[in-house]
């Protein structure tokens, strides 16, 4: 099975959507309009988009603090995402979650999480529900190399393998847990090496190549739906920005060399995917330019939408606490 033109183009559109969305967030942050923290996904777009391209709307995802790329890749609405980041009532969470907690349950986005690795058990439980209720959805969780050291990851992978759960563990290895490098925090060469300890396949892939991410995820999804259990995929990637917006003004020294960042940026996932589409005859330069222009307009619209959305009202404070009222 291979991706068709429509899928490849849609993947490019979503990668552009994430990139421009994040650029807009950076602009809004620098103007002082954004009050809370935000963690740009720029440079890692191919992972979320390649992974979600292998999923259905009914499949579930969960993510982490680097939280805008995953829901947009799954098909989330940029207007509601941007409004949430600005704390507005039309936001995905009515302004109660903010940047790190985007969620859209209607299309399987079970929510991003501010605590590193804490959504890994959640996604594992979603897969448990699929198994117990005999439904054919799968779940996929995005987490980083830093999260791979949390007990929650270990516990989840053990349970998932023990119970053959339809879950895909998608490790976005961007080389750093905030400022702590991979080599200073992980005891093995690759996070995917740990898969054998749980008795599941571990797959190491180029996370800058959306098609490669799709291929690996597609196979993991096939396994999961067939009842063959979980897969750990490690996508090697890089974040082009700092860990979070404004961190460069707080930390006292550099943790990455400029040469390393420059080198990583030569492997930008957007031009990689664009070239692949053009080289394989799936799209022309003009078509790609048009996608970019359309998405730029879309993101401008999202910023406009978010700015115009009203803030929640004081009386909304106690709303959404309970599903069964007290």
């Amino acid at each position, binding site marked *: 099975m291979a991706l068709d033109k429509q899928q490849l183009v849609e993947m490019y559109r979503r990668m552009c959507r994430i990139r421009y969305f994040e650029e807009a967030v950076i602009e809004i942050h620098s103007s002082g309009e954004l009050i809370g923290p935000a963690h740009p996904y720029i440079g890692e777009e191919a992972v979320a988009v390649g992974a979600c391209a292998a999923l259905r709307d009914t499949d579930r995802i969960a993510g982490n603090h680097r939280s805008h790329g995953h829901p947009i890749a799954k098909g989330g609405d940029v207007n509601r995402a941007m409004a949430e980041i600005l704390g507005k009532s039309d936001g995905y969470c009515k302004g*109660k979650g903010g940047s790190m907690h985007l969620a859209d349950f209607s299309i399987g986005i079970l929510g991003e*999480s501010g605590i590193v690795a804490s959504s890994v*058990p*959640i996604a594992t*439980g979603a897969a448990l*529900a699929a198994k*117990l*209720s005999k439904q054919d959805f799968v779940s996929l969780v995005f987490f980083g190399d830093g999260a791979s050291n949390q007990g929650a990851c270990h516990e989840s992978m053990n349970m998932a393998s023990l119970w053959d759960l339809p879950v895909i563990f998608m490790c976005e290895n961007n080389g750093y847990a905030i400022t702590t490098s991979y080599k200073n925090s992980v005891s093995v060469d690759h996070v995917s090496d740990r898969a054998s300890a749980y008795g599941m396949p571990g797959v190491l892939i180029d996370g800058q190549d959306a098609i490669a991410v799709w291929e690996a995820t597609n196979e993991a999804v096939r396994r999961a739906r067939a009842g063959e259990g979980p897969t750990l995929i490690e996508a090697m990637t890089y974040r082009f920005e700092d860990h979070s917006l404004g961190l460069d003004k707080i930390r006292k020294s550099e943790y990455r060399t400029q040469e390393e960042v420059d080198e990583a940026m030569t492997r930008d996932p957007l031009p990689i995917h664009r070239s692949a589409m053009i080289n394989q005859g799936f799209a022309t330069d003009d078509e790609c330019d048009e996608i970019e222009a359309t998405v730029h307009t879309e993101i401008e619209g999202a910023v406009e939408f978010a700015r115009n959305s009203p803030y929640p009202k004081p009386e909304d404070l106690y709303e*959404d606490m309970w*599903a069964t009222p007290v």
Partner: protein
Amino acid sequence: MATKTYIQAIAEATIEEMERDKSVFTMGEDLRHSVYGATAGLVERFGEDRVLDTPLSENGFFGAALGASLCGMRPIVETVTSFLWVGMDQLISQAAKMRYMFGGQAELPVTFRVRMFYARGASAHHSDRNYPVFMNTPGLKIICPSNAYDAKGLMKTAVRDNDVCLLFEDGIAISSRMEVPDNADLPNGELLVPFGVANIVQPGSDVTIVGIAGGVQHAIDAAKVLEAEGVSAEIIDPRTLVPLDKETILKSVAKTGRLVVVDPAHKMCSAGSEIASIVAQEGFWDLQAPIQVVASEQVNVPYSPALEPLIYPTPSKVVAAIREVLD
């Protein structure tokens, strides 16, 4: 009507709810062999898929229960107070917060059955009465049955509730026995006790005693002692701490003018101190004497049988507190 133990009541509630609703399943450690007494025969009755013996991974399986609940399942998780600490990230950062954080999108119908062992020589690591910690975190419903009847009725309500419920099973009360009606004898065919409705265990006019979990029995024992001296005590069991039926407590204090709260938890920031705070703020002009809170000493639970009994509320400490407020 048959008499049943608290633990039998919990087991009955589990079976009834699993039979009623296929999305209900149980998970936890050592369920098959019923180490904690309420899950015997469940595997044989419902099969391994609905009775999951988990690895020793509280953070992992607490989170998995939450994730499953987001996708239409209704897990009952069995655990022990002291193991809640191991799964705190999932309990606090996810269970309590997901619904609000996601603007009301999440429904989390998970019941955590939490055995609260104490006063049995298990020392500091296995004697936690930690419900007040969770009262301090918005988003969790806190259930503290003090007897078999409430254990069954509250448990069944918890399983049907669409929020995360922590049901603390008092380790002293679990072998206590009382009459629990058979379903056939109930007008609706089943026993459901609503949340947020306190039980007036006995009416009285001189002093209000609010008992929490195992503290209710101490209140009853103390009231009997003082009844002989002509003191009429009104005993209130809130049954659920979140939501808390403060109206019933305030109404009682308005009548008696005196309040003693009996809480097995450590005193600082306890359920008892919260109730005292509410009454001090909202019922001050009804009070004839300073409120007394009889709670556990602010020290870790010691092992020695010479020391451990000193720290918990006892009927005689409650009697002394009542004398204090009547003085």
